[in-house]
């Protein structure tokens, strides 16, 4: 890119485009040149739409020239995680199972970006079906971290995090079922917002979990995230979870500072439940000092231990994911990547009443959160347990062994955002997480914006050197963890596999046996005496407008 276009934010590019100091064609050409140079080292794109993007940029230029400026996304090059339907363009889920899937219609979020005049540069890498990864046995390689190419981007919106951090797109959309926007944002050093459940339509976005899927933006700054949210938020009758509420002015809400705002620190989550690395903890303490300096009231807060949210989320989400893919799991299980299977297959052990108990527990959790929301305007914790690990360090069994710092806010459904709060000694980003009550997305953005303005972290970009020598060799697919199941336990698991109509290789069966004890412990925790009147969080109701 030229000095005039290098690493522009959406807000700055929009200001120049509106003032006709920057042409959308010039900007798109510069972005495409940078992608050509940088993407071979990052594998952030599944599909690049260069010609189409240039056509869209020319169209935007004509419209703006004719006085029909649509707003701050007009002429801005963006990317979409490859689970968003795009009419006439491959939407693969980064999976062999859908590697030829070309939808006829756009997802609602895709369509809203187009209506706002955005330029779609390409479809971005994801963990398989927004769940399993990093994987080394899929038709496309996993995205690499722009701050260090041998490290993980975080996922599942892996390409979105990498492409935004590297400046290959000015912003991107991702999805978040257990942290899939916030983790890549934290590990790649960008801003990622999981909006309130129901605020952004899920229609046309390949399902991971009906109950927990959220669509949201990844961007370099909080202001840019607010601009993207503004374009995609709002009721969509084609999404049964879509909220019928007025949409706030998220950019305007950034102003005003955070003096007097009550910030609750979820200290137990990163000190006891999932102890984070020392440099992470030090960065968080420094961030709290920044909040105090800005006039916020900072005090400790406590929610349930992380593993309790994790049990509710995993039981519900894996059962739903299994249901989505049940047909293909029975007939072409070998076409899925091993990491995806290591997460999804154990769901054959979840029974109907386990699912209902998890939904009932979720209702209790949602009620409990009210007291916390009354005491604190936002809650903060770390965005990840540490900086990005190496790609070759990942083991699927870790998904079952450890809870997550991000998942509680998929269970609560409220907004949650991660952003950069500094760098490790090795130069990798460290992530701060800010969460709020449902539909208080503007408050979360305001706190994040105040922090961003008070800190220097946005001045540093990943040190990419196009053309530098680089090995593209991927790590081998790790061997499954050793299963320590007794013969009786194996017989029982085999019974569930048989009853589910699955035909598994010995390797997949071993993987399942290794994860089963962790799942069974989660399910056991959910089987407790409850009042019969305690309803599940998901209750049938007639669609709005139908009665």
């Amino acid at each position, binding site marked *: 890119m030229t000095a005039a276009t290098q690493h522009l934010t959406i807000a700055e590019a929009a200001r120049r485009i509106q003032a006709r100091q920057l042409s959308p064609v010039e900007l798109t050409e510069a972005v495409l040149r940078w992608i050509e140079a940088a993407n071979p080292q990052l594998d952030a794109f599944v599909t690049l739409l260069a010609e189409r993007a240039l056509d869209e940029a020319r169209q935007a230029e004509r419209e703006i020239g004719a006085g029909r400026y649509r707003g701050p996304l007009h002429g801005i090059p963006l990317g979409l995680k490859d689970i968003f339907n795009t009419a006439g363009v491959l939407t693969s889920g980064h999976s062999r199972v859908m590697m030829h899937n070309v939808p006829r219609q756009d997802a609602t979020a895709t369509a809203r970006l187009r209506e706002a005049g955005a330029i779609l540069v390409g479809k971005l890498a994801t963990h398989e079906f927004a769940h399993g990864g990093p994987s080394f046995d899929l038709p496309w390689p996993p995205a690499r971290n722009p701050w260090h190419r041998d490290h993980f981007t975080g996922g599942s919106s892996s390409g979105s995090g990498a492409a935004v951090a590297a400046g290959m797109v000015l912003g991107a959309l991702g999805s978040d079922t257990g942290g899939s926007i916030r983790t890549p944002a934290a590990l790649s050093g960008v801003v990622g917002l999981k909006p*309130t*459940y*129901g605020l952004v339509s899920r229609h046309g976005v390949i399902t991971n979990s*009906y*109950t927990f899927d959220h669509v949201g933006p990844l961007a370099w700054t909080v202001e840019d995230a607010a601009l993207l949210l503004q374009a995609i938020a709002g009721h969509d009758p084609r999404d*049964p979870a879509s909220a019928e*509420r007025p949409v706030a002015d998220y950019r305007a809400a950034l102003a005003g500072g955070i003096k007097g705002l009550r910030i609750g620190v979820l200290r137990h989550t990163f000190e006891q439940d999932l102890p984070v690395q020392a440099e992470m903890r030090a960065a968080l303490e420094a961030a709290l000092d920044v909040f105090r300096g800005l006039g916020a009231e900072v005090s400790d807060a406590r929610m349930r231990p992380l593993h309790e949210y994790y049990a509710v989320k995993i039981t519900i989400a894996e059962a739903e994911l299994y249901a989505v893919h049940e047909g293909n799991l029975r007939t072409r299980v070998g076409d899925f990547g091993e990491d995806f299977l290591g997460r999804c297959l154990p769901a054959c052990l979840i029974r109907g009443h386990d699912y209902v108990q998890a939904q009932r527990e979720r209702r209790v959790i949602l009620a409990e959160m009210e007291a916390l929301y009354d005491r604190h305007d936002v809650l903060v914790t770390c965005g990840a347990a540490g900086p990005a690990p190496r790609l070759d360090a990942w083991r699927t069994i870790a998904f079952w062994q450890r809870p997550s710092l991000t998942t509680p806010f998929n269970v609560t459904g409220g907004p949650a955002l991660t952003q950069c709060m500094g760098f490790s000694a090795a130069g990798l980003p460290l992530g701060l997480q800010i969460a709020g009550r449902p539909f208080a997305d503007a408050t979360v953005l305001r706190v994040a914006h105040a922090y961003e303005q008070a800190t220097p972290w946005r001045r540093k970009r990943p040190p990419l050197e196009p053309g530098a020598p680089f090995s593209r060799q991927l790590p081998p697919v790790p061997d499954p963890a050793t299963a320590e199941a007794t013969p009786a336990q194996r017989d029982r698991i085999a*019974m569930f596999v048989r009853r589910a109509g699955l035909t598994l290789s010995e390797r997949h069966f071993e993987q399942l046996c290794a994860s089963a004890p962790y799942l069974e412990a989660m399910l056991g925790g959910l089987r407790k005496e409850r009042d019969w009147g305690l309803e599940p969080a*998901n209750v049938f109701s007639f669609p709005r407008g139908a009665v």
Partner: protein
Amino acid sequence: MSEPHDPTLRAELEQLARLGDATLSAQQLDQLCEAYVYLEAMLGRIPRDRPWQDEPMNTFRFPKRGDER
């Protein structure tokens, strides 16, 4: 008197019941085996290869503004 039940099915159902903390008498297990044949047929009638876009009827929603406390 009903037909004798498939011993494999009976063993599996007994194992499943035990997993649910239920200890069944022989008579209760007979009853379960009898009913299970019909339950399995019902489960077989539920399509399992739907497009991913088909949402469940009980999708979670936050209360509409004004509905909450």
